């Protein structure tokens, strides 16, 4: 049973129009650059993308927006790009905004086989519209459901032949959660190592959750807000 595939094109070969995708990353940090490029090349349409953000005009999910491949975004914060705004205002693109912690926890619930959880985020706001409210110990919570995504596309720092993944610094963000949540999980890694080279004590996502893995290439790793201090 070999999980290693040669490249992103092969890894995403069976992603079809109308698929529901999860894409890891926070802003442009830790996004699956290779898989996104392959999706753009393949030209699949009508995608639902669950991703905390929607990239910028010429990078990340923004590249898929440019080609009008996205039908719906499920995110906590979007609109860092002009094309996104244009499509949203023209009605070409649907957007569902949900709190960031709710987004993360709905991913985790999927990966943990928990169909629904309760969170206080959004109680009393328009996010609560149509949702079940329940009081526990004097505090109100919303019932939120686990996501059900066809594919999860994640980017890790290191991965091995068994699909075990390790993420680096804050590029971890949503990646492990989505890796655990996808019905089929595709991981691209900066460094693919043979089985047994990663310390089993330091694995962030055990390989059981990962179906395909490939050595990524040409990472740009663009910085969205370069901020420095004087020495």
């Amino acid at each position: 049973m070999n999980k290693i595939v040669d490249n992103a094109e092969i890894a995403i070969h069976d992603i079809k129009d109308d698929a529901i995708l999860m894409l890891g990353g926070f802003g442009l940090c830790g996004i699956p650059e290779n898989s996104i490029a392959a999706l753009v090349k393949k030209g699949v349409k009508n995608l639902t993308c669950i991703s905390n953000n929607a990239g910028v005009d010429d990078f990340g999910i923004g590249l898929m927006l440019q080609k009008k491949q996205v039908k719906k975004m499920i995110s906590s914060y979007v609109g860092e790009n002009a094309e996104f705004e244009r499509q949203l205002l023209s009605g070409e693109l649907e957007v569902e905004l949900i709190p960031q912690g709710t987004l993360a926890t709905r991913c985790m619930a999927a990966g943990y086989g928990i169909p629904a959880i309760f969170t206080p985020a959004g109680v009393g706001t328009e996010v609560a519209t149509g949702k079940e409210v329940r009081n526990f110990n004097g505090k109100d919570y919303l019932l939120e459901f686990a996501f059900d995504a066809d594919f999860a596309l994640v980017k890790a720092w290191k991965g091995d032949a068994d699909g075990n993944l390790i993420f680096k610094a804050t590029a971890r963000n949503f990646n492990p959660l989505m890796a655990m949540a996808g019905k089929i999980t595709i991981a691209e890694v900066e460094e693919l190592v043979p089985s047994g080279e990663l310390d089993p004590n330091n694995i962030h996502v055990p390989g059981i959750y990962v179906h395909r893995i490939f050595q990524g290439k040409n990472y740009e790793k663009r910085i969205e807000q370069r901020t420095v201090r004087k020495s």
Partner: protein
Amino acid sequence: MALTKEQIAQRIAKELKDGYYVNLGIGIPTLVANYIPEGVNVVLQSENGLLGMGPFPLEGDEDADMINAGKQTITTLPGSAFFDSAMSFGMIRAGKVDLTVLGAMEVSDQGDIANWKIPGKMVKGMGGAMDLVASAQNIIVAMMHTNPKGASKLLPACTLPLTGVKCIKKIVTDIAVLEVTPQGFMLLERAPGVSVEEIKEKTTGRLIVNGEIPEIQFV
């Protein structure tokens, strides 16, 4: 004289206690990190998945894999830890973060907050703000007392879509420090040279003024 943004941050920094875990929002709240009092050790949480956030990197040391919730390049301090976003909001919901500082467009005298959406304008999303205000025990709002048109941002009820209800404990503006009580905004301190009358004029929500109101001290 009204406080500068830096001074608002400086005043909020006085609320920090040794050992606090603190989440600072984007804008004025971020500046609070520059005024942490001597001898007070606080650990900064960034909700994308980091405890122990340090200052911005030196030029050339930026790492694309090391950013804060505002997507700015940052560094880490000794004792830091990285984790995923579910654990990050897990510790927030579980009340492990001692203090949350964030900006607002409006605050009501019951402690409701609106800071994510202006109807008719492009909506970018709530990010982690709804999770933070729904979960934190101790939330301070840092904002200007009035909007650019001069209208009060401290209202009887928010007019904008809410981010959270009955959650704000304290507000530090450019002219006043206020506590949210069951009776409304309790005026605690005023900016140096700013009169109680001016604060009354600029506060639409219920304002409680008990006795002499001291000027804000920064040290």
